[in-house]
């Protein structure tokens, strides 16, 4: 019998099969429905923004790889970063903005720190925040999707910005989020109105619009339902766990419900948080930015703390801060805490409790 080449390696000799690349591509797949919805809602211009973002990210990754003699574009992480950057852009943004965001994301946020796995901040988030505060005007021009409102509402504040501008004004005292929008005659879709009517107005048309993605905003963040569907896909695939998004959204909702009403003259426990939950970057942030593996804790306990922290800071920034970008900033703030969380929040070891109780017993005896 001819002996073929034999591998001799350390155990285990089985593997669960997924690779870093398969994880990255799966996240991209999970994002695809929401991204495509953006293209459908805002037209081909949105597709152009997506393509430019992805191509520039991958190109920058490729060039940096040339310098350091690595070939990393097949791991899918640069594609994912580009996709996320594109999804975080207003559909009508000038194309140099996503290009700059991609360059910043891949170069400064990722490669300077040592490439994939070594960055402390999600590159896409860094790119988004960088261009937002550099080109705030360009990044704040949002158009409404094609199925809402009149033709002249090409440049319109998003629901969130509209609410934020009004909040604290005497005119909107005692009003909840949806009522504020109503008071300024913010456009709602026909679909939202009819659903709201058929439910006797229990759910405001704005909430319906926000949930299904009939609102203005960054091109990939508008459809809460598709983002949630993508997140469920990732959870079923066991790529993300519930800990971070649930703790984040739960903490935010709780705080917004308890204290949210205070901002416009209402009492405790009267905050109108449902619309807040589905608007802005909340869903995209909770399910796809905060859960970035590289920049979140590895332990379950750590993930809970991380999620609660993001929820807390998002609440503060959204209700009491003067700047937009509350979700992004909250995630970045908690990213800074990750090494500390990792250092002090350790998983419970097997056989640890017994040892402690035993030794304390011995010490007491």
């Amino acid at each position, binding site marked *: 019998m001819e002996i073929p080449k034999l591998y001799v*390696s350390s155990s285990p*000799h089985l593997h669960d099969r997924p690779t870093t690349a398969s994880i990255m591509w799966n996240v991209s797949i999970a994002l695809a429905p929401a991204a495509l919805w953006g293209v459908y809602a805002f037209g081909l211009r949105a597709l152009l923004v997506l393509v430019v973002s992805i191509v520039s990210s991958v190109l920058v990754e490729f060039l940096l790889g040339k310098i350091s003699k690595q070939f990393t574009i097949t791991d899918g992480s640069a594609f994912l970063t580009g996709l996320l950057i594109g999804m975080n852009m207003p559909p009508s943004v000038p194309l140099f903005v996503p290009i700059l965001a991609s360059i910043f994301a891949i170069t400064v946020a990722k490669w300077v720190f040592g490439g994939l796995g070594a960055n402390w901040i999600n590159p896409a988030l860094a790119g988004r925040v960088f261009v937002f505060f550099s080109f705030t005007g360009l990044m704040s021009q949002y158009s409404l999707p094609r199925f809402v409102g009149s033709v002249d509402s090409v440049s319109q504040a998003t629901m969130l910005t509209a609410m934020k501008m009004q909040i604290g004004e005497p005119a909107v005292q005692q009003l909840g989020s949806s009522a504020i929008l109503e008071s300024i005659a913010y456009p709602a879709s026909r679909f939202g109105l009819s659903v709201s009517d058929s439910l006797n107005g229990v759910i405001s048309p704005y909430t319906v619009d926000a949930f299904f993605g009939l609102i203005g905003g960054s091109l990939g963040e508008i459809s809460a339902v598709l983002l949630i569907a993508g997140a469920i896909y990732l959870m079923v695939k066991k790529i993300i766990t519930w800990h971070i998004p649930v703790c984040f959204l739960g903490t935010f909702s709780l705080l917004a419900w308890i204290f949210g009403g205070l901002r416009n003259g209402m009492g405790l426990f009267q905050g109108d948080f449902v619309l807040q939950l589905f608007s802005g970057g909340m869903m995209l942030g909770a399910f796809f930015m905060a859960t970035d593996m590289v920049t979140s804790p590895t332990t379950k306990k750590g993930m809970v703390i991380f999620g609660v922290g993001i929820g807390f800071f998002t609440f503060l920034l959204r209700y009491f801060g003067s700047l937009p970008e509350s979700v992004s900033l909250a995630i970045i703030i908690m990213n800074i805490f990750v090494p500390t969380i990792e250092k002090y929040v350790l998983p419970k070891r097997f056989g640890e409790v017994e040892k402690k109780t035993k030794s304390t017993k011995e010490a007491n005896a």
Partner: protein
Amino acid sequence: MQRFPTFRKGGVHPDDKKSLSSPCAIERLPVPSELIVPLSQHLGAPASALKQKGETLDIGEKIGKASGFISADVHSPVAGLIKDIRKVTLANSVVCDAFVIAVDAKQPVKVWEEQPYAHLSGAQIISIVQDMGVVGTGGATFPTHVKLMVPKGKSVDALVVNGVECEPYLTADHRLMLEETDKVLQGVMIVAQAVSPKRIIIGVENNKPDAIEVLRNAVSQKGYPIDVVPLKVKYPQGDEKQLLKATIGREIPSGKLPIDVGALVLNVGTSFAVYEAVALRKPLIDRVVTVSGEAIASPKNIRTYVGTKVVDLLAYCGNPKERYEKMISGGPMMGFAFFDDQTPITKGSSGILVLDNQKELDAPTTACISCGRCVAVCPMGLQPTKLYKLIEHRRYEDAMKMNLMDCKECGCCAYTCPAHIPLVHGMKLGKKLGRK
């Protein structure tokens, strides 16, 4: 639906691949013409040789004497002539002396008759077990007589018999439970006679419903005070720490032994060996080995002599297919890859696997993306990725402080790592270098 107990923390669910060999009844390998019987088939000091080159041997004759407290005797499985005593490398990389035995073509008929054992005291049973060279057959090969000597001031509350066999592919214990049910149970009762436990539990994963049923029937028929507990399938439940957590809910403190929580864990294969040792006075000279894997033409469970060369087993199973890529002694999660088909079977060889899918598993290692999967699956609650980074930077002492020694190399972390980082390899290296 009934809920089956299991351990809580960590664990993985690899495809068990047991159906390859689980329907195959145990067969006996024809006596090979040559055996290589190593003197170190157990944990602890190697046995010292009692025989010289050129001497003839009888079946069951003692050829190695235990050379320390944790050590075990070695016996000749056959009648034959010692051709040579030379150094061999075992599958687990242990290098030791071994007898090369030319097996007599005509073997005398040896009948091991059952002898009464009900009158034996605990000390007598332990001394017989020691004399017959019984060691744990699950893979760790801890000398059984040492395990049965309960230290002063401690007592056995629960005797837990390990019928879990959680490693994929392996079915040797499964077949033993099915085919030698009564002998396995008698072995358990003999151990119980020696250590007088308050209760006896057999833990079997519920992917072996036939074994659970057969055991339950036998237990109720004979009226043994044994509780057969089906367990939810999860790797590494066959580890004694996880098994005790699953069956009696106790956690062995870090660095301690089962007896420290009043438990004694025994493999079903070991129980069978104890039965043969005490009831038949037959030394541990043969065992059941699963020969399986995708590259094996006809997987089998084979009862064979200790010292049988792997090449003989493979030939009996129809030689591996053209392309195969890895030979493993033991299971695929913790077993050892080896390259020499002249390597002998030892008392701890539960399986010989020949796999042909290794190249595709051999994906290149990429950067750690801190996904936390290794942390989530570690049954010991360690942080493999952190430990690996410390070891990579030669900070062995810091790794020790993070309880590197708690790692038992079960392989869950490396199994699940999407970056294909050789985590277990790192742990092994760190332990070795950190101890110095």
